[in-house]
C-alpha cells in the first residue's frame, strides 16, 4: 500500500493540490485534511502546505496554530510521525512551537517569487534522508514574511545539533545564517521555505523538488514499518 500523507488545509491554504501532485509523483497517496480534523491516526505522514492560512491575519501562522488539527499534528509529531511544513506551513509550525524561531518580513520589504538554489546540509531529517550533503537543488520560493529569525542561543543549538537542513546559496530574504529549512531535534518535524512541490518537472523549470519529496515519502514508509 502506498504511503498515506495527510495534506492539511486551512481556510486560505492554496498549495494543497500542488502538494498532492508532488506527493503522487514521489510515490505517495495524498489526502486532504480539513483544519477542523482532530484525528490523524490513519496517516503515515503530514504535510502543511503553503498559502495564507486564516488570511495570515495577525502574523502568518498565528491563528492557524489554534485550529483543532494542530493539536492532532502536535500529538502526531510527538509520537515520531513525519511532519513537513512548506512556506506558510513552516510559519505555522514555528507559531505552534513545533519548530524554534519565527519569521519577519523579507529584507527590503520585497515579496520574493523566484527560483533559489539551496544546499542540503544534513541528512538525518525526514526530508533530506538519503541525499548527499552539499547537494544543490534549484527550488522556487514565494513569500513576503520569509526571513527566518531566532535568538543567538537557539541558533547555536540549531548549528551544534545539525538541525539546519537547507541553506540558501543566494539568500533571497535576509534569513539568519542563510537558513532555508530546519528540523526539530529528532529530525521528524521539518520546515522549509522553498516549495519542492513546485519543482517536480523540468517543464516547471526544475524537478529538483522531487529529491526532497521522495526522501520524505521513503522516510515516512520507514517510520510506518517501524
Amino acid at each position: 500500500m502506498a504511503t498515506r500523507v495527510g495534506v492539511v488545509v486551512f481556510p486560505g491554504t492554496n498549495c494543497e493540490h500542488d502538494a498532492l501532485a508532488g506527493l503522487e509523483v514521489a510515490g505517495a497517496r495524498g489526502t486532504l485534511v480539513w483544519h477542523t480534523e482532530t484525528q490523524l491516526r490513519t496517516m503515515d505522514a503530514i504535510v502543511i502546505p503553503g498559502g495564507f492560512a486564516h488570511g495570515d491575519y495577525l502574523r502568518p501562522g498565528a491563528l492557524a496554530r489554534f485550529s483543532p488539527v494542530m493539536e492532532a499534528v502536535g500529538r502526531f509529531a510527538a509520537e515520531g510521525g513525519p511532519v513537513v511544513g512548506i512556506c506558510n506551513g513552516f510559519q505555522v509550525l514555528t507559531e505552534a512551537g513545533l519548530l524554534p524561531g519565527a519569521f519577519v518580513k523579507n529584507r527590503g520589504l520585497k515579496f520574493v517569487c523566484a527560483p533559489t538554489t539551496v544546499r542540503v546540509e544534513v541528512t538525518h531529517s525526514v526530508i533530506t534522508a538519503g541525499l548527499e550533503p552539499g547537494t544543490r537543488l534549484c527550488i522556487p520560493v514565494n513569500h513576503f514574511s520569509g526571513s527566518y529569525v531566532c535568538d543567538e542561543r537557539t541558533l547555536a543549538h540549531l548549528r551544534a545539533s545539525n538541525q539546519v537542513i537547507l541553506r540558501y546559496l543566494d539568500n533571497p530574504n535576509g534569513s539568519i545564517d542563510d537558513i532555508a529549512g530546519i528540523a526539530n531535534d529528532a529530525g521528524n518535524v521539518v520546515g522549509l521555505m522553498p516549495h519542492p512541490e513546485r519543482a517536480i518537472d523540468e517543464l516547471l523549470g526544475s524537478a529538483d523538488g522531487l529529491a526532497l519529496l521522495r526522501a520524505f515519502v521513503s522516510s515516512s514508509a520507514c517510520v510506518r514499518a517501524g
Partner: protein
Amino acid sequence: MRFAARVEVRLRPGIADPEGTTIERALPALGFDDVRGVRTGRSFRFQVDATDVETARRRVQALADRLLANPVIEDSELEVSLEPDSGEP
C-alpha cells in the same frame, strides 16, 4: 465590571524592522531630517469583563502572551483601565 484594554506589540530591539527603516529613510525628503529611531508596531484595543482590575490585567497579559505577540520576535506593553461607562458606581 468592564475594563478598557490597549495592547501595543512591537518588534523586539535587535530584530530588524524594515518598515520602520523605510519610513525613516523617506522622512528627510519631507523635511523631517530631525527624526531618528523609527520603529513600527501595532495597537489592539478591546474591552474585557472582570471582577477587578488585577484580574482584567492578568487576562489581557495572558492574551498578549498567547496570541497577540510572538515572544520570539515581539514585546508587548499593556494598559488596562475601568471603562468610564461600564455602569459601575
